[in-house]
Every structure is written in structure tokens, then in C-alpha cells.
């Protein structure tokens, strides 16, 4: 298909919610004000690890203006967590706190200030326990247990998978590299702090408006933790002011607001402060990595062995999935015939880590791409040409049994190489360049490249079930308007718009004719949530199916009226008719009336679940996706060797998006991903001092402003993937991945020093230059690895190079 076959798809249209956003009409959760509403605050632990001996709320309750003060005793004693295997959180801690910021009590009062004041009057008697603030601490002190579950003392998860004989493959290699990397954790820092409004009404029913990316999971957790039938609970995701994975867990404050509403008989609002957002976290895991890869003389990979140690923080969150994700996605990018992965997530007394844009795959991508750069240099190969050579084959399986479909990575590499002037600039710039002018200036210029792949939606749901991952109901009314009901949550990525575009395309309407009703567990069919880059594909496929069924029903009625066959009809320009006899075409509104007269109410469901093709081994459920996006990135920068300051000048990014349903929105996702990657590469870090977050504020937690963000040149590559809606793949996460290693590789090109630790700060660069000056290996990065016995690997035959299964089970496809 070519672009001009479409009326809506491929056009740079405004988002359907853009107007509301520019005039300030969009109502985020904290913009809701209900009559008689009370304001709640959480009292959070000031200890990183402590037993709670007693809590006395009497002084808080006595304060004028306080409606209720609660502790764990006032809630059902039920633990929760996003993953069924890690139910380890409490809405309010009962016996123990595991991090500074753990909630222990809450107050609802006439206003926020009174609630805060009351919190300060709550007396908590703690018995401090040793705080374990690093992977090394937690493993060195097995006698101190943060949790009493997991795969060993303070080990949340320990996984080991082997696909083929990796040792033999490494033995037979021309070059074997062994490198160690560290990726520091960082926060999503969405501009909107989490907020929720709960209203438990006199009829015993509960409504929660929340800034959440996953209303369906919040719905399930509220039913469990409040011991209330799910049927009496309604969760509405308000438009989300930025998520990036930070609003993907169900949270304590949501549960507590509901309980306070029940106890006070008032609506209750709770809005986190920026400091609380940093402590609520669920951000990027700090990960230590060891990677050993074998190469042939030509640059082919013979095999790869990766070990990862994740600093999980105090709770499970998505951690089991995060652990797998550090290992399973790298093989999707390149030909890796055999592969071994060992990973472990360690509990520490810090805010829990979870999913952030690129979930778990960003850290090992940094490791692999920096290692490939070194290997290319040792082999005397151009890093771009070497990668081009080893790009995975489309429609095959990887060593770890993931099925890949279309792959546009080769074209992505070619186009960023071309656009950036890679060949000329690589020779002209860099530490080895012979330009006399360049050598005098302390500002050295460098060019670096890296690639990546990312999933377009997780192939399995968070809790095991056979139901759709995404559902849509589409109805047409007599006005000619169409309403799309879908549980998808718009977090700024544009899911409401995508639903409108796809429906309009199928029905021959304009996007403004479509009313999208999103993210309301009472009104809309379930969509699992805005995570894992799943929404455009999964909601999109469901929306196309629903709109197609509606169109078929209307075509049947119009065909009778025009006395033609339904197959001869088309829908376009808000009419339905036969192309050769367009004068007789029926306006859509009239067609909807004919349809309703023939069929009754015109409302049709659409359902989507991913193809069932997970590898048949334990752990095979993490990694499969309907299709994968691919990205290649070239960074051009200068580094000042006197100050260590890095100035990014240009980023060229090629992204295989399958098809750009709206190129403007795809570019926006790519640019935002590049920006976030830059922040992680150069400045953002969630670090701790004396058990406290070192800088839980937007001033001290450095993030790129307009001045640090370079010109971003986006190149979209279309591969028309058979799995995606009109061929589309994801765009919201994948393009973040290559940016970080491309920056590290460019710094090496400029200065000849390796910073194997993110963020790459000026002091690390200066330290490496100093090492270089005194003749030591010019590298700054981790120098020791944790002592932890990985369990014996599950050994599975490598599926590398096998063709994609021709027959796949596709639930709900008909």
C-alpha cells in the first residue's frame, strides 16, 4: 500500500485533544474539585529500615479541621503489588518500613495545610534496623532481611537461561571481549506529580480519578486491598501529565484516598509533592553488567554471555519483568547464534525501581553497543558497517525463541550514516584525526553511533488470562457521529488521537467526527494500560476490527437501499457509495440511520490479543511481542578536555516505525525519546546520601533544558509490518535506547577515553583524561562485581535463524 491510498493515515494532523491542552481546559487529576472535598496527606517514614513499634494518631485527630487519621490498622491487612508474584507492598506499613518515604499513616483534613500539620502530630516509635543501601551491602548482610520472600536473602529474582553452547562459540571466536558497565538509576520526573481523587458515595460505590497509566490494574488492586467488589469500583484515568512508566504501578496514595473517603463520607484528594514523586519512584534500575562476546575476524558475533545485577530498591514492582528485560531483547537486533543470560535483582532500602521508558533494555543496550564499538576498533572495522553486516534477519527467530517480523534497521543505519556525513566526519574529527587546528583547541569533536530494538507491546499480560489485551466498542448514532469506547489511557503519546484516526480511516470520516471515551473501567472495555509500547498496536487493531464490523453493518443497509452489492461500496468523504456512481452516495449520518433501522443499535466490539508464540520454556513469556521497532542513532558532540563539559550539537535518529500513522506524532515520540536519553546519558541520576535521596527536587536533579537539547534530526523508516495497525510499530520508547551508547561512543571518538558508567559527567571525563595522561588505561567505570551465585541455567536449544512460524494462534482475529 502506498500512503496516498489513505485519507487520514500518514497525515500530520493535530491531536484530537490538542485544543483543550493549549487553552488550559484539560482536567488532570489535581484539577478536579468536588463539593465538600477533603485533602489528604501521607506521613512517610524517615527511616530507611525500621520496625514500627507503635503509632499514635490521637494528637492529629484532635487537631481542628481534621476529619480522619488512619494507620494500617484502619485498612484490610492485604498486601499488593503490580505482579502476582511480588505482592509485597502495603497501603500503609504495619510492622516495618523498608525505605525513607514508606507511608505509615495518613490524614484527611479541611485543607492540605491542616493535613500536613496533623501528620507532624502523629507519633511513630521506630526500632531502627540496618539500612542496606547498595547491591553489595544487601548481599554482604544476608542476616538482615528486607523481605522474607524471593530467590535468596535479599535476592528478589535470580534467573539464568542458556540457548546453545555459548562456551564453545566463544572458544572458536577470533576476538573475545569481556567488559563491565554500570548504569545509574534515574527518575521519570513527569511534569505532573501523581494525584488522585476518591469518592466513596452513600450507595457504597467508589470512584477514583487518578493520574495513572494503568486504570485496569488499579481497579483490581483497589478491589483486593479495600476488600470491596470490583463491580462497585470505578477507576477513571484522568489525562496524565507525563508518565514514562512512573504511573504504571498501583500506589499507596490511591488506596489510602479511597479508604479516607469511605471513613469521612467526603470526596478526598491527594496530590504528591515533587519530593514524594522522587521517593515513589519506580524508575530506571541501577544495573551492573558484565558482557562477554565473541567475534569473527569480519565482525560477526559468534555468541554472547551477559550477566546483570539490578538494584531493585525496597519493593518488587515490575522487578521480575525488569530482570528478564535486561537479558532478552538484545538478541532481537543482531545475529547472535547462541546466547546466555544470568540476571539477579537485589532488594535494597531505597525507593523501588520499576519500568521507565525502555524498561530494563536500556542498560544492557548501553553495554552491548559500547562493546561493539570497541570490537569494531580492534577488528579495524567501521562501527556502522560492522553493525550493518550483523543486523538480524527478518521473519526469523532469535536464539532465545523470539519471533521477529520486519526489520528496518539496515535502512535506519544507512540513512543516519548518510544524513550525518558519518564517513567524512569520522575521519576528520576524533582524537586520532590529524587536523592541526583541532589539536590546538581544548574542544574536541567526536561522532558516535549505536543501534537498538524495542518491543511493540508485551506479548503476555501481567496476570495470566485468556481475555483480550485491548478492547474497543464502537457505536454510530443518528447524528452521524461515532463514539469509540476504549480503556486506553492517553499519557500525552496520543492514544485518543490514534483511536480517532484509525476509526475515521475505516469509516471514511474525519477524526473530529469521532468521539473517544477513554480509560474508564465502568464505561470502557479493558485495555491493559499505557506501558510496553503496546497501545497503538493493540488498541489500534481492536479499533480497526470494531470499526470494520460497524462499516460492514452499515454497508449492508446501504447496499439494500442502492440495490448494489456491499462489496462494491466504499466509505470516504463522510459518504458511502459506489465509486463509479458517487452522485448516489449516501451521507454517513443517513447511512447510520439505514443501518440502525436494519440491525437495531449500531455498537460493535473489537478485541485484540497478541499472537501466541512465546518460547516454550520457563521465562519464555517475557520478551515476545507482535513486532519490534528498530532505531539507529548518530551523535555529534564536542567535549572540552579542560572542563569535561559535553556539548551535544546534533543527533540523527533513524527509526523503523512500521508505518507512521501520523508522522507528526511519531516525530514527537522520537524527539522526546532522544531528549530523555540525553538526560540519562549526561546528567540524570537518582542517588542517595545517608539513606536519603541526594536531590529530590527539579532544580538539583539535573535534566536537559532547551539549552542542553541539541537539534534532533528524525528520519522515519517504514516497513509496513503485517502485525501492526496499517503496518505500524512502536515509537515511544525504542528511540531512547541508542542515544546513550552513541553519546559514549562519540566521547571516545573525541577524546580516546571510555566512560563505562552512566551518567557520563564532566568529573568522570576529567578523571579518564588524567588516567590517559599518566599512561593508565583511560577508562572510568565499575571495577568490581557482586559475589552472587547465579542458579544453574535452564539450557534450551538455540532457535537462531529458524523461520518465523507460519501458523500462529491469533485469538479474536475473526
Amino acid at each position, binding site marked *: 500500500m502506498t500512503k496516498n491510498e489513505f485519507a487520514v493515515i500518514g497525515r500530520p494532523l493535530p491531536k484530537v485533544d490538542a485544543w483543550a491542552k*493549549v487553552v*488550559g481546559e484539560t482536567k488532570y487529576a489535581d484539577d478536579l474539585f468536588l463539593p465538600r472535598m477533603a485533602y489528604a496527606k501521607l506521613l512517610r517514614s524517615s527511616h530507611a529500615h525500621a520496625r514500627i513499634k507503635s503509632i499514635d494518631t490521637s494528637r492529629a485527630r484532635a487537631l481542628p479541621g481534621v476529619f480522619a487519621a488512619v494507620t494500617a490498622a484502619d485498612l484490610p491487612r492485604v498486601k499488593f503489588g503490580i505482579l502476582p508474584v511480588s505482592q509485597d507492598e502495603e497501603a500503609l506499613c504495619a510492622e516495618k518500613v523498608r525505605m525513607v518515604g514508606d507511608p505509615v499513616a495518613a490524614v484527611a483534613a479541611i485543607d492540605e495545610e491542616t493535613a500536613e500539620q496533623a501528620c507532624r502530630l502523629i507519633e511513630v516509635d521506630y526500632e531502627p534496623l540496618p539500612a542496606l543501601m547498595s547491591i553489595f551491602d544487601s548481599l554482604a548482610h544476608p542476616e538482615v532481611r528486607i523481605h522474607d520472600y524471593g530467590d535468596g536473602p535479599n535476592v528478589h529474582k535470580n534467573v539464568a537461561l542458556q540457548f546453545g553452547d555459548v562456551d564453545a562459540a566463544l572458544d572458536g571466536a577470533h576476538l573475545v571481549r569481556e567488559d563491565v558497565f554500570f548504569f545509574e538509576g534515574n527518575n521519570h520526573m*513527569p*511534569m505532573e506529580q501523581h494525584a488522585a481523587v476518591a469518592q466513596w458515595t452513600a450507595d457504597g460505590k467508589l470512584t477514583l480519578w487518578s493520574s495513572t497509566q494503568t486504570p485496569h490494574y488499579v481497579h483490581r488492586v483497589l478491589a483486593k486491598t479495600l476488600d470491596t467488589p470490583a463491580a462497585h469500583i470505578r477507576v477513571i484515568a484522568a489525562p496524565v501529565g507525563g508518565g514514562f512508566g512512573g504511573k504504571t504501578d498501583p500506589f499507596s496514595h490511591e488506596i489510602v484516598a479511597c479508604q479516607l473517603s469511605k471513613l469521612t463520607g467526603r470526596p478526598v484528594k491527594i496530590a504528591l509533592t515533587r519530593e514524594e514523586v522522587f521517593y515513589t519512584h519506580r524508575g530506571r534500575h541501577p544495573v551492573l553488567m558484565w558482557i562477554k562476546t565473541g567475534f569473527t575476524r569480519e565482525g560477526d558475533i559468534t555468541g554472547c554471555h551477559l550477566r546483570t545485577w539490578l538494584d531493585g530498591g525496597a519493593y518488587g514492582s515490575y522487578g521480575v519483568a525488569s530482570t528478564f528485560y535486561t537479558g532478552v531483547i538484545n538478541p532481537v537486533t543482531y545475529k547472535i547464534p547462541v546466547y546466555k543470560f544470568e540476571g539477579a535483582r537485589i532488594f535494597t532500602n531505597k525507593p523501588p525501581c520499576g519500568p521507565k521508558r525502555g524498561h530494563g533494555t536500556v542498560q544492557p543496550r548501553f553495554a552491548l553497543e559500547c562493546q561493539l564499538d570497541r570490537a569494531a576498533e580492534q577488528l579495524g572495522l567501521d562501527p556502522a558497517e560492522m553493525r550493518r553486516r550483523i543486523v538480524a534477519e527478518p521473519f526469523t527467530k532469535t536464539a532465545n525463541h523470539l519471533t521477529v517480523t520486519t526489520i528496518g534497521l539496515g535502512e535506519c543505519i544507512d540513512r543516519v550514516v548518510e544524513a550525518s556525513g558519518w564517513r567524512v566526519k569520522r575521519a576528520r574529527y576524533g582524537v586520532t584525526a590529524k587536523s592541526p587546528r583541532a589539536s590546538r583547541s581544548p574542544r574536541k569533536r567526536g561522532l558516535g553511533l549505536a543501534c537498538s530494538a524495542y518491543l511493540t507491546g508485551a506479548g503476555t499480560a501481567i496476570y495470566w488470562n485468556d481475555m483480550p489485551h485491548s478492547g474497543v466498542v464502537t457505536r454510530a448514532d443518528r447524528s452521524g457521529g461515532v463514539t469509540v469506547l476504549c480503556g486506553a489511557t492517553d499519557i500525552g503519546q496520543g492514544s485518543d488521537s490514534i483511536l480517532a484516526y484509525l476509526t475515521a480511516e475505516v469509516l471514511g470520516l474525519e477524526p473530529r467526527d469521532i468521539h473517544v471515551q477513554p480509560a474508564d473501567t465502568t464505561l470502557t472495555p479493558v485495555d491493559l494500560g499505557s506501558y510496553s509500547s503496546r497501545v497503538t498496536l493493540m488498541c489500534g487493531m481492536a479499533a480497526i476490527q470494531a470499526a470494520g464490523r460497524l462499516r460492514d453493518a452499515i454497508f449492508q443497509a446501504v447496499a439494500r437501499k442502492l440495490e448494489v452489492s456491499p462489496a462494491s461500496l466504499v466509505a470516504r468523504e463522510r459518504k458511502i457509495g459506489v465509486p463509479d456512481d458517487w452522485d448516489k452516495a449516501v451521507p454517513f449520518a443517513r447511512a447510520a440511520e439505514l443501518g440502525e433501522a436494519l440491525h437495531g443499535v449500531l455498537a460493535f466490539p473489537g478485541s485484540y490479543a497478541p499472537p501466541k508464540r512465546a518460547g516454550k520454556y520457563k521465562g519464555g513469556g517475557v520478551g515476545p511481542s507482535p513486532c519490534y521497532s528498530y532505531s539507529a542513532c548518530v551523535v555529534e558532540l564536542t567535549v572540552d578536555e579542560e572542563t569535561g563539559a559535553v556539548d551535544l550539537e546534533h543527533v540523527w535518529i533513524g527509526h523503523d516505525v512500521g508505518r507512521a500513522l501520523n508522522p507528526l506524532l511519531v*516525530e514527537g515520540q522520537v524527539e522526546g525519546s532522544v531528549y530523555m536519553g540525553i538526560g540519562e546519558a549526561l546528567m540524570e541520576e537518582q542517588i542517595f546520601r545517608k539513606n536519603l535521596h541526594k536531590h529530590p527536587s*527539579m532544580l538539583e536533579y539535573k535534566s536537559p*533544558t*532547551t539549552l542542553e537539547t541539541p537539534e534532533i534530526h528524525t528520519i522515519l523508516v517504514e516497513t509496513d509490518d503485517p502485525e501492526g495497525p496499517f503496518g505500524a510499530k512502536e515509537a515511544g520508547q525504542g528511540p531512547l535506547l541508542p542515544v546513550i551508547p552513541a553519546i559514549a561512543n562519540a566521547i571516545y571518538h573525541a577524546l580516546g577515553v571510555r566512560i563505562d558508567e552512566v551518567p557520563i559527567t564532566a568529573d568522570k571525563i576529567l578523571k579518564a583524561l588524567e588516567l590517559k595522561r599518566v599512561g593508565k588505561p583511560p577508562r572510568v567505570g565499575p571495577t568490581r562485581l557482586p559475589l552472587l551465585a547465579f542458579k544453574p541455567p535452564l539450557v534450551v536449544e538455540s532457535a537462531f535463524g529458524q523461520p518465523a512460524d507460519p501458523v500462529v494462534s491469533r485469538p479474536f482475529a475473526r
Partner: protein
Amino acid sequence: MKVRVALNVNGEAREALVPSHKTLLEVLREDLGLTGTKHGCELGECGTCTVLVDGEPVLSCLALPVEAEGSRIVTVEGMAEGGRLHPLQEAFVELGAAQCGYCTPGILLTASALLAERPSPTRQEVKAALAGNLCRCTGYTKILDAVELAALRMGRQEARS
């Protein structure tokens, strides 16, 4: 202690009885119902709560309403005139410069103050003017593009009139 404040907001005379330490941000949102102004940090770090006071961008989370008495306050709700969007608002819609939209009001107002002072700024000048407004979604690219587009259109409008 509560004080009565009289404010001119978006050309309307508004009054509120508020605790004397309540910030302009809180009064706009909670007492005057103008929730278009957002909060990102409430410590003057992110630019999200920017409003215009006599044409100058002001962080409303650090301002007290009494300081703004007698001044003209403009919030995002006051940018459109007579149902017609400000050229900046139009450009932000067209170019996809608002993703989650949460930083958008503050950025629109900061940009409008820039364009009032410098009708055709360079890209570097736009960047410098917006350096105090954080956005986590867009990578700023579409925002800068939209400000430039609006400047261009406003310049043309000026030339015609």
C-alpha cells in the same frame, strides 16, 4: 490570617478571601477556578506555573497575590481573544507541540512574553527564553518550531495591518 485580595485576571476583576501566605498559584487554581495554571514543583524550579504579570513571566508558585494587586495577570485561559486562539496556541496545535500538555500553559505564556518583546527571535533566543520551562515529553523540538511559526505568522499579520 485571611486577607481580601483584588486581582485583575484576564481582564476580569476578581476577589478572594485567602490566607495571606497562600501563593498566587494556589489562589488562581483553588479560589478562582483557573486550573489551566499547573504546578510542577512549587519551588520555582520548573516554570510550569508561569503566568504573566503586566506582561512579564512570573512563577506563580513563588508569588503572593498581594504583590500582584493592581497588576494585569494573564493565565492560559486568557490567551485566546473572543474565541480566537492566540497564534502561539494555533501553532502548538498544528505542530504537535503539546504532548501531555502539562507544561504547555507555562510555555505558551513565556513564549508570548518573548514575542511581545522580540517579534522575530532567533532559535537561540527562543531557546534562551524557554530555558526555565522544563518539558519531559517533546524534546523541545516541536515547541521551538511552533514558537517560530507563530512569530512568523504574527509578523505577517502585523505587516498586513
